[in-house]
């Protein structure tokens, strides 16, 4: 089954609220060998005017992944995980994520384009805080390979 072109414009319901934990932020930062005290040290983060540690720039991938699971679970998507390559990624921030934020992500498939040997699927996960204010949008481009003959 090829990628379903009717996915374009499809909007998904927001994911369940995700509470950003201080130790999760620190664990993520350590996995990236970060030395930024804003990620690691709550005292440094507070001294800089934040309520708690600030998440690394790529942290929203955790929420984007929840939305991609929604996409893959669509019975008519035609997207099989084992043929998916991550081709591009972008994060567009209104403000940084801080431990204590309760976030949801809402996915929209914004583009599907066939190309030699595969299909490019572009989607945007719009991440908002508990007040409904925009925090960051995570844009991903996946290339879905064609099924083996």
């Amino acid at each position, binding site marked *: 089954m090829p990628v379903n072109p009717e996915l374009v414009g499809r909007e998904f319901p927001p994911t369940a609220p995700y509470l950003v934990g201080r130790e999760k932020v620190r664990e*993520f930062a350590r996995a990236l*060998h970060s030395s930024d005290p804003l990620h690691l040290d709550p005292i440094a983060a507070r001294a800089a005017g934040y309520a708690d540690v600030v998440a690394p720039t790529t942290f929203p991938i955790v929420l984007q992944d929840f939305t991609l699971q929604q996409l893959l679970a669509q019975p008519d998507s035609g997207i099989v995980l084992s043929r998916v390559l991550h081709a591009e990624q972008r994060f567009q921030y209104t403000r*940084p994520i801080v431990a204590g934020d309760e976030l949801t992500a809402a996915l929209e498939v914004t583009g599907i384009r066939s190309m030699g040997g595969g299909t490019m699927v572009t989607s945007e996960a719009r991440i908002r805080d508990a007040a409904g204010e925009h925090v960051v949008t995570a844009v991903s481009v996946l290339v879905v390979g064609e099924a083996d003959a």
Partner: protein
Amino acid sequence: MSTASTPALSALQPGDVVAQRTIELSREMLVRYAGASGDFNPIHYRDDVAAQMGLPGVLAHGMLTMGLAVETVSAWLGPELQIREYGTRFTRPVVVDPVTGASVEIVAKVGAVDVDAGTARIDLTVSYEGRTVLGKAQVQVGARAPRSHG
């Protein structure tokens, strides 16, 4: 890792290296990133699955490489500059050998500065075995917004 001191946008010139480091990637780091991020795709820790998929070996998560790259500049930015946008293309995989790992070199340079707007673009070059693995890895930074949140 080396970083310059606190940046003043007006002092930056395109081409200036603001931070760089070399990361010796190991399988342990891939497993650690899998746990931290929730991405447990087995091509990032199982040789048999990677081989089954026709890959040259176990690969680093593209998002690990992207994250390592931007964290090279994060501490340099300090509390007064914020990252507004960060994007890249994944152009080449990083194969992490079970014994010898993979050595990834990251260099962050000033791409452009707009002093009036209070913004700058930082370009990241990430290479492995002498070839770049991220395409157009660019970070847009700007003066921090008023402290109205968090």
